[in-house]
Structure formats: C-alpha cells, structure tokens
C-alpha cells in the first residue's frame, strides 16, 4: 500500500457559535526505496465545512448537550458521513462553554458519535495553538524559517500564538474581540468588563443604551489595537495588558525575533477588507479590524493573510490536532486505541538514572505519579538518547520493565513515548523482560511536556504508525 487516507473531524464549540468540519488527511511513506520507512502526512484537504451555528445553551452557563448532539449528527448527515467513518479529530470547547461541567458533559455526549478516536480539549492556550495551525501561520513560519505571531481575533477573545520555524514559542489570550461591545438599532446594547477597562484607560465612558457614537467606538477600538500592539511587542507594555488577560490563559511573552503577523478569527476579515457599514454585524468588529490594519502591528511586522480566518480554529482542530508516531515503533498486544492517558515525563536527570538502571527510583516515581493522578494507566515519556549502545538500551529496558512491572497492575499495558528514534529497539527489549502476556506499546518521534495527556489511536499503514494526539485537559 502506498498511502492511506484518514477522515478527521473538527468540532469547535464556542461561546457564541459552533462549527463542524471534516477533512481528509493523506498519509504516505515519504522515504526512498532503500531506506527505513518514514510515514508522514503529505496533504490535508477540507471536505466539508458547516455553517457557524449558534451554540445551544440550556441556561446562561449550561450547554444543551442534547441539542448539540443533534446538531453534530445533522452535520454528519450533511457531509454524507457516519460516526464510524471517522478516524481522528478533536472537539474544541472554548470560552463560556469550556466550564468544567460542560466540558465533561460534552466528553460523554459526543464521544460515541464523534468517532472512536476523537478527543475533547479545551482552554484558551490550546485554542491559540490550534487556530495558529489552522490559519496557516505555523506552516508559513516553518516554510520561511521565521517567527510568525498569529492573532485569532474572535468575538470575545484574541488568542495569540507565536511560531518560530514551525515550533510554538509563546501562547496566550486577551479579552479583546469584535463583540466586546454590541450595537442594536444604533444604540449600545452590550459592553464587556474588559471593554469598559480599555475604554476608561483611553478616556471613554460608554453607557448602555446611548447612541453608538462612531468616533468614540473607533477610539475604543484604537485603544484595543494598542493593547494588541503591546502583546505583539511592538509597543512597551503597561498594566492594561495584564488586566485584560483571559482567565486561565498564559501571559503571552512576545518573542523578540517576530518578523511577520498573521490574523484569523472573524475580525481578521475586517482587517483585510475595510469600509462598508461599520455596524453591519451589530458590533465593533469592523472598527477593530480597521484600527488593527492601521496599527503598529501591521507597520512594524509584515502582515500575512492566513489560509483560514473565521474557520481557523475548527480547521486546526480537524486537520492539525492529530500527528503520527515515528515509523519504526513497537506494539505488542491489542490494547489500542487508548484515550486520555496522563504523561509522566522524565527530565534529563531522571532519564540518565534510568539508562543507568536505577529501577527502584523509577518504580517509586511511577507509583507516586499513579497516586497523584488516581489512575492505573499512564505513558512514560522521555527524550531518549540519539543513538545509544545496545548494552545501554538493554539496561534501560530492564529498568523500565522491572519498575513498570512492580508499579502497574498485572493487566495494565506498558506504554512509552520517546522523542528520539529508538522505540522499536527499546520496545523489543522491554518485551523480552515483560514476557509474552504483557502488552507493550513503545513509540517515538513524540514530544511531550509534563502535565500533558496523550491519545493513542489504532495502528494504521499496516501497523507501521500510530496516530497520536497530545493535549492539555485544562477545563476552565
């Protein structure tokens, strides 16, 4: 077989709107005939994108999970797909919808219909990364080898991510967006808390119900754009930047070497095409877009047009949340797929101890980790050595095999994720120690951080690779 096509779903459930997209992801062996295989995504194609639906709520803060379930199911029908056709993807829950009880409810109500291997994720930081991938900022950064900042400017928040040579280097979120102030029948109908703060700092005091004064609203939007300038690092930061940071998000530390800027989200369309009735959307989006277009962000950095604007998050969820493991890996026993596995990441020092054979240390560490997470399943992760000797690899296998054997229940699989390409050899060596009844899955080319969760899909491409999703389950 030369290649395989994966059907992936992206579901974005936001405060105001929800969207569903389906993509085809094309996998192929990209190495030559004379080399060990290297399976990689070679193309991604959007096959269906839904309208932006209003997110159904039961109460002010509780999602209507039944209505959402129906909504998602009807989009499957529109796309001509069944839940069983889906191989991968992600559900992204953001804003108000991301409250803990909502997210958990969604996890339960959507997990069976969104396909076997679909994950739920939430949190503004993650949305920043996903929208930066969906907009194309990450790919431009990698292709040109430069640092690109992506601003995903939606209704309520601006999610910001910086990519340097394709690698994420900073992320964060601000309460700035096109619907922070709304206008109905020529009058101001809504002002958010953060809009009040920003307006006051600029000397504006808008009142609910008063006629929408274009000059004042434009002035407030200019102030918002100035906060974004601070975030981009093109103006000195003041207290306001910290005051409008989205709850639960990281402070976005602007990288000094940013060369270009990319915009996505609904407001991005107003940056690229200005003019027209400023209140056509009943909010300040068009003003905000125009003010950003004229800001120092666009004069100091090179503005780029993303592939996707309003759909960046949902496309990112559908096309960029799934990766594949290295192509020489080891999996023994049919335990996959497995979802929401907590990752125990060993640091350099701990890794060194394990290569040295200190299994008692590792056993204690694993026991502690399982206790902390109140679980019996986990993935042991480390960078691993680039090209270890076989003796050293066997010592590591002995250490891991013994420690996991002691710390884990008899039926629990041994799961390992390395960064460097030695998983097949390590997995094989661990199997020899663990014995034939123990399931061992050892994959590489996977980079994790402490506190991550990981999903391992069913092996594909004739068992050569495993789809992997790395995520942070940070429910608001």
């Amino acid at each position, binding site marked *: *077989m030369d290649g395989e096509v994966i059907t992936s779903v992206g579901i974005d459930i936001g405060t105001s709107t929800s969207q569903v997209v389906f993509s085809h992801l094309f996998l192929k*062996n990209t190495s030559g005939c*004379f*080399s*060990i*295989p290297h399976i990689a995504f070679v193309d991604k194609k959007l096959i269906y994108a839904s309208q932006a639906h209003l997110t159904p709520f039961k109460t002010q803060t509780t999602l209507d999970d039944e209505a959402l379930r129906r909504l998602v199911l009807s989009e499957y029908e529109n796309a001509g797909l069944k839940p069983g056709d889906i191989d991968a993807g992600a559900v992204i829950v953001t804003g108000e919808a991301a409250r803990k009880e909502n997210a958990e409810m969604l996890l339960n109500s959507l997990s069976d219909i969104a396909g076997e291997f679909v994950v739920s994720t939430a949190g503004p930081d993650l949305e920043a990364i996903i929208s930066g991938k969906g907009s194309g900022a990450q790919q431009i950064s990698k292709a040109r*080898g*430069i640092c690109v900042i992506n601003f995903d400017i939606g209704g309520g928040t601006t999610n910001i991510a910086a990519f340097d*040579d394709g690698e994420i280097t900073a992320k964060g979120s601000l309460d700035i967006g096109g619907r922070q102030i709304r206008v109905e029948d020529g009058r101001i109908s809504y002002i958010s808390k953060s809009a009040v703060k920003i307006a006051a700092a600029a000397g504006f005091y808008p009142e609910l119900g008063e006629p929408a004064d274009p000059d004042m609203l434009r002035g407030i939007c200019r102030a918002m754009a100035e906060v974004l300038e601070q975030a981009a690092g093109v103006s000195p930061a003041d207290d306001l930047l910290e005051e409008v940071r989205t709850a639960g998000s990281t402070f976005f530390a602007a990288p000094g*070497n940013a060369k270009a800027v990319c915009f996505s989200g609904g407001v991005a369309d107003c940056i690229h095409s200005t003019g027209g009735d400023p209140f056509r959307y009943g909010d300040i989006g068009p003003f905000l877009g125009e003010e950003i277009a004229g800001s120092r962000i666009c004069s100091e950095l090179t503005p780029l047009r993303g592939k996707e604007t309003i759909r960046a998050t949902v496309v990112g969820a559908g096309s960029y949340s799934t990766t594949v493991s290295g192509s*020489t*890996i*080891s*999996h023994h026993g049919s335990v996959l797929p497995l979802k929401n596995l907590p990752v125990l990441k060993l640091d350099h020092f701990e890794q060194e101890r394990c290569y040295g054979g200190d299994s008692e240390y590792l056993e204690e560490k694993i026991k502690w980790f399982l206790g902390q997470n109140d679980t019996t399943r986990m993935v042991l992760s480390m960078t691993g050595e*680039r*090209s*270890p*000797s*076989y003796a050293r*690899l066997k010592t590591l296998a002995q250490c891991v095999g013994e420690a996991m054997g002691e710390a884990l229940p008899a039926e629990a699989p041994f799961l390992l994720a390395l960064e*460097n*390409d*030695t*998983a*097949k*050899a390590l*997995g*094989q*060596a661990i*199997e*020899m120690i663990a014995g034939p009844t123990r399931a061992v899955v050892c994959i590489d080319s996977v980079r994790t951080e402490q506190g991550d969760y990981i999903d391992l899909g069913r*092996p594909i*491409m*004739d*068992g*050569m690779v495993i789809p992997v999703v790395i995520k942070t389950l940070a429910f608001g």
Partner: protein
Amino acid sequence: MDNSVIEQVVEAVLAELSRSEGVTVPEAPEIHEPEERDITSEAERAAVLVKNPVDAEAIARMKKYTNARVGVGRAGTRYNTQTLITLRADHAAARDAVFMDIDRELLDGIGLFAVESRCTTKDEFLTRPDLGRQLSDESVSVILEKCVKKPDIQIFAADGLSSTAIKANLPDLLPSLLDGLKNRSGISVGTPFFVKNGRVGLMDQVSELLEARVTCVLIGERPGLATAESMSAYIAYEARVGMEESRRTVISNIHRLGVPAVEAGAYLAGLLCSILKAKASGVGFRRDTGNEG
C-alpha cells in the same frame, strides 16, 4: 659561511657557558599548546562561517537540513581555510574507512569468526570486484564446518568499502537484530560470521553454501565526505549466484546521524521475517506485504 664553521662556534660557546659557574641559563619560556579543537565535530560543522550574514539564524537552520558544506563563506572563489581542512579530514576518514582492517577483538567481542574472500590485499579488493564476491577455498570449508545448515535466516557481516561502518554499527546492531529474531518463535537463525574483503554479491554464494532461505549481509557503504560510518543491509530470499540484482532488498543509511544501529537491528528483525513469510525479496517484495511492523 661553511656549516662546519658554525657548528664549531656553537660548540665553543656552549662549552664556555657550561664552564662559567653562577651563570644560569634562562629557562625556556613555557609554550602554551593551543587549545585542541576538533573541526570535524558536530558543533564546528554546524557553525555559520559566512562573514557579516544578514540572517545568521536562517543559515544555521538551513544547515540542519543537509550535510553539504553550505553557509561556510568563501575566500574569493575558494573555500575558507577551515572548510578546506575539514574537507581534507573527511576525505582522510573516507580513505581510512576503505583501507583499515577490522580488529579481531571487536569480532571476538560479538562472537563472530572471520573468513575471507578471494582477495588477499585491499588493492586487490578494490581492483577485482569479482574476487570480492567469492569466498576463498579455505573460507568455504571453515563456514561449512562451523555453521548451522539450512537456516531460515542467515546473517553475516562484511567490511565492504568501510571497516569504520562495521566498527561503528555492528556491535550494537547485531545483538538488537538477533534478540528481535529470538522474540519471534519458530524461526531458525544461522551462525553469524564476518568476511574480510567481502562484497555484496558474496551473499549469493553463502546462501547456496548453507542452503539458507533468507540471507542478509551487513556491509560497510562506500564512504562519502558526509560520513564514513554508514552501513547497509542487503537481503535476498533464496539468493543464488548469478541472480538478478533486482532481487535484493536494501536498507541503507544506518549510522549515528541516520538510522541508529539499535533501531535498525530491531527493524531488520521484522523485515527479515516478512521476507521469509512473503518468499520474495527485492522488487518482488513489497515492504508492506505482510509486514509485521
């Protein structure tokens, strides 16, 4: 002035000096050895040598994608001194790889006995490829005496064009490969050995001699200026002398910076079993057909 005259003068002066007591000969100033610097190290190779670059970071990134000598600057139309010396060092390493012999101790350490092709010297090996594809008469009898017959899988190593590659990879690859095969029950593995001055085609004779079903030779690749440590594995199902080259499956680029030796060993274990199962190798074998991963 005649040299002998100078010598006479020097001798006279030295004699005078040693006679006069109280005169101390000043100590020779301490010579500071310049710090040792390995210009073939990874760090030195990664260095951007372009003077006054517009974007040094971009050049450094580009260099990560290739072993080619890019981003090294120039002196007129030529290389800078450092680049030229590195090139020569790489060339020297390549020559060493071809002409060096494998240490007996290394082979003993991994439990391999050694035999030879019909070539008796490296010069003959380089000029007579045909002889490098045949075992010497003595080697034939040693192999027949020491090796298990009719194995499912016969593995051997040969220096080929890089002894350096064998030295760098075989001690880690071979045990990983053999352990991988041990994990799969019901497969008989032949007695591994080493052939000095051997070429790829020698595997055909080994296959016939031992009546092996699958034969795999681990052999040093022709060294280039990027690495002299690269090893390949050539594999054939029921190899026969005179068979088409297209029946060989090859996995190349096994070295520290390519596919790590231990990982290549584990991968080869699966590949050999797949070839055994498919009863085909080379273009007749699709890697994914019945591959157990």
